[in-house]
C-alpha cells in the first residue's frame, strides 16, 4: 500500500517520572497506511512513548500532532480545560489497545462498541449499532455481541477491544503489547486480526515483543533503548541486519531467551 500523508508526528518528546528520565528526545513520524512497530527491552520507554502520543502520560516536553490536531506538552497546566479538550481531540483520532484489553465488564460486547460513538460522537444509535456489527463481523465476534466480556476468552476480548476502537473510526490505531497477557495458543487469532488491518491499509503503531510478527507485518521497525531511538528502518534491516551494536545485542539476547 502506498504511504500517504503524515498522520502522526511527535517531536522532541521527553518524559520524566520524578527524576527518572524515561524518554530522551524522541521524534516520530507515521504516515497513512503505515504499520510501525516499536521494539526494545522492557524499560526502554516504548510503552511510555505510545502513552505519550494520546497523553495517557503527559510528556514533560514535546509536541504531538495527530491528523492535524497539534498539542504541545504542558505539564504545568495539564488539568486546564483548554488543554484537556485538545487532548480529547487527539484521543478521538487515535484508537488505543491495551495489554489487558480493558473492556467495560458491566456492558455487553455491543454496548462496549457503541458507548463512545453514541455518547461522545453523538452518532444515532441505530447507525452506531450497524457500524459496531460490521466491525464485530470483521473481527469474527458477531455471535458474541450480546455477551459480557467475562464470557469471552482472552483472544476474543482483545478482538472485541479492537472492534470497539474501530467503531470510533480513528486515524491511527495504537497497540500496547496487545498479546502479552494472552495464553500462547490465543496469540495467533489476535495477530491475524492485526495483520488483516495492516493489509487493508490501517495506520498502526504497535509496541510488541513478537519479533516474527514484526518481521511479517511491519513496514518499519523502531528499536528503542533507554528512551532513545537507536535504529529504525524496514524489518529486514533492523531485525535481520541491524547496524547498531545495541540492536544486535538486543536481538541476540532475544533469540537466545525465546529460542526463536
Amino acid at each position, binding site marked *: 500500500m502506498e504511504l500517504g500523508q503524515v498522520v502522526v508526528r511527535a517531536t522532541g518528546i521527553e518524559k520524566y517520572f520524578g527524576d527518572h528520565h524515561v524518554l530522551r528526545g524522541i521524534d516520530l513520524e507515521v504516515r497513512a497506511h503505515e504499520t510501525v512497530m516499536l521494539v526494545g527491552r522492557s524499560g526502554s520507554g516504548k510503552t511510555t512513548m505510545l502513552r505519550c502520543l494520546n497523553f495517557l502520560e503527559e510528556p514533560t516536553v514535546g509536541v504531538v500532532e495527530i491528523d492535524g490536531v497539534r498539542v504541545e506538552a504542558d505539564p504545568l497546566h495539564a488539568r486546564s480545560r483548554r488543554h484537556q479538550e485538545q487532548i480529547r481531540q487527539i484521543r478521538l483520532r487515535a484508537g488505543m489497545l491495551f495489554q*489487558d484489553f480493558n473492556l*467495560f*465488564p458491566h456492558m455487553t460486547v455491543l454496548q462496549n462498541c457503541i458507548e463512545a460513538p453514541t455518547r*461522545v460522537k453523538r452518532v444515532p444509535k441505530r447507525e452506531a449499532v450497524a457500524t459496531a456489527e460490521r466491525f464485530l463481523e470483521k473481527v469474527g465476534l458477531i455471535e458474541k455481541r450480546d455477551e459480557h466480556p467475562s464470557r469471552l476468552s482472552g483472544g476474543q476480548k482483545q478482538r472485541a477491544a479492537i472492534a470497539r476502537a474501530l467503531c*470510533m473510526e480513528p486515524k491511527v490505531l495504537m497497540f500496547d503489547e496487545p498479546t502479552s497477557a494472552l495464553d500462547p495458543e490465543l496469540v495467533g487469532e489476535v495477530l491475524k486480526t492485526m495483520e488483516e488491518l495492516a493489509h487493508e491499509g490501517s495506520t498502526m503503531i504497535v509496541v510488541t515483543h513478537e519479533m516474527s510478527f514484526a518481521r511479517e507485518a511491519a513496514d518499519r521497525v523502531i528499536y528503542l533503548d533507554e528512551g532513545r531511538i537507536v535504529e529504525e528502518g524496514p524489518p529486514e534491516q533492523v531485525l535481520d541486519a541491524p547496524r547498531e551494536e545495541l540492536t544486535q545485542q538486543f536481538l541476540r539476547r532475544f533469540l537466545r531467551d525465546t529460542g526463536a
Partner: protein
Amino acid sequence: MTSEGISGRDDRIVQRVQAAERAALKWFRIKVALVWIGLVATLVLVLYLADEIDLEWTATWGPLILDGARTTILLTVISIVLAVMLAVLGALGRLSSNPVAYGVASLYVSLVRGTPLLVQISFLYLALPQLGVVIPAFESGVIALSFNYGAYLTEIFRAGIQAVPAGQREAAQALGMHERHVMRRIVLPQAVRIVIPAIGNDFIAMIKDSALVSTIAVQELLWRAERAGRQSLNSLQALLVAALVYWVLTIIFSFFQERLERRMARGDR
C-alpha cells in the same frame, strides 16, 4: 500417573471422600441447629419458670409494638437511600482535586465520624430550635441517620471507586470520553457493584441504630416498646418483644443481603 485400572478404583475413592465430606458438613449444620434450639428453649424455659411469659400481655400490647416496625423500616429505607446519595457525592469530593470539594467532603466525614450518632440526633431535634430551625422528629431522625451513615459510606464508596482498575478509566479516556462521562458511565457502575455488599451490611446495622431516634420521640419500635412497658408495668415483656422483632427483621434482610452478595460475586465482572 496411575494406570487405568487403578484410576478406576481412585474414582470410587474420590466419590466416597466427597460423600463423607458432604455428610460431615450436614451433621455439623444439624448439630449447630440443635445447639440454637437448645439455648433458645432454655431461655424460654427460664422465663416461663420465672412466670415472665405472658401471652395475654403480648396479645394486647404486641400489635402496638409491632406497628412500630413499620416506622423503623420506613425510617431505615429512606435514610439508607439518602445516605447512599450523600456517599456518592462525598466520595467524589474526597477524590476531587478541587480544594473546595475536597475540603467540604473531608470535613463532613471527619465531623460526622468524630461525634456520636446520639449527639447528632439530639442536636438536630433539641439544639437547632434554639437557632429558629425546627425540624419534626421523624425528619430529624432521617437527617441524622442519613448524614451519619453517609459519612461512613463515603469512605466505602471512595475505596470502591479506587478499586476499579485504572485501565478502565484509561480505556474510557482513550475513547475520547469526558471526565464526567468516564465517572458516571464507566467507573461508578463498577464501583457500585463492589460496594453493594457493604451497603447491605450498613442497612442491617441501621435497622438497629434507628432505635436511637426513640430518644426524640419518633414512634418506632423501641419507643413503642418502652411506652408499652411503662404503661403496663411490664418492661421485660415489652423489650423482649421489641428485641425479637429487631432480630427477625435483621434475619430477613440478612437473607436477602446474602443472596444479593452471592449474585454480585457471580455477576458479569
